[in-house]
């Protein structure tokens, strides 16, 4: 057994330069990826949440996007991750919206519809009262935010994507175009139309 252990150690030390370099690069990539996801996940969640208007679906979409990015694009340069990630996320969002439309279309034909099983589960954390005080200003801000979210969710998909990537993720026109897979001119058009629509919808909240 000792001889076997010694052989193992010797073989490990023999292969160490290349193997160690490989392990180091993998570890570094993994760390970079972890940092990227940690820095992005909240904004990604809000983008998905506003688009889907459903917390659990938004979480699922973000997790799905994370998994796909890690599985398929972990070895791409880190600079390529943001546009790739948001493109994957947008695809996940649209898949969910499509599934939801199909499901509601099917459910509309069922006689026992009405019991929405997704809302049956009691989530004590979600139901717990917010411990922070809610002064009038905070209430007004919350109402404005809700109105904004509703209006954004009503936007056409491309306008919504352009508006949220620019507003929440803080991407410039070029990065947004890369994430959306379109030209910068298209991004400007989508963003401008989104702003016009939202301002028209939110006039009463914005004074």
């Amino acid at each position, binding site marked *: 057994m000792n001889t076997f252990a010694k052989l193992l150690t010797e073989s490990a030390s023999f292969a160490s330069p290349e193997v160690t370099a490989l392990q180091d690069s993998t570890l570094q990539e993994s760390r970079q990826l972890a940092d990227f996801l940690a820095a992005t996940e909240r904004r990604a969640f*809000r983008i998905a949440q506003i688009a889907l208007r459903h917390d659990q679906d938004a979480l699922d979409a973000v997790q799905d996007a*994370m998994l796909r*990015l890690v*599985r398929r694009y972990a070895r791409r340069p880190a600079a390529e991750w943001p546009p790739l990630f948001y493109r994957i996320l947008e695809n996940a969002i649209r898949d969910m919206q499509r599934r939801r439309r199909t499901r509601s279309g099917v459910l509309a034909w069922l006689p026992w519809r009405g019991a929405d099983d997704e809302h049956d589960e009691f989530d004590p954390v979600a139901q717990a009262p917010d411990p922070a005080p809610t002064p009038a200003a905070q209430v007004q801000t919350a109402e404005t935010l809700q109105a904004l979210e509703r209006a954004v969710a009503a936007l056409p998909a491309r306008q919504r994507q352009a508006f949220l990537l620019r507003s929440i993720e803080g991407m410039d026109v070029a990065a947004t175009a890369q994430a959306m897979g379109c030209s910068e001119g298209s991004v400007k058009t989508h963003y401008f139309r989104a702003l016009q629509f939202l301002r028209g919808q939110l006039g009463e909240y*914005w004074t």
Partner: protein
Amino acid sequence: MNADEQRRLEEFARHARALLQDSVANLDGATRSRLTQARHAALDQARVAAPLLQWRRWLPAGAVAGAVLAVLIVVGQQTSGPQLQASTRGAGDDMELLADTDGLALAQESELDYDFYEWAVSTAQQADGGGVGS
């Protein structure tokens, strides 16, 4: 669009952006925790996939090495073919001799007439010698 309208639109965009970014910063603890779990789950997948990716890195080199080995085997078979056949044939003869039990049975017979065999051999040798001399 006039300048005033442009200014209002920019102001609206600034306000909306501030509102949305505040909402990101103020995400509740439960959601943050679930996002962290989702991130860890995704990264665990990466750790599981990493050895596979390392293996895949060596795939082209392995394929080249395999091809070279195959070529060497084929070329080696072609150059050493006749020698192999000769040695194989020799081994076959040896096996035939070993398997031949007639000689052994003959030698083991106790009542052999050795005088007869000696006479037969010497007669044959004389006949050969005469043949050559004549």
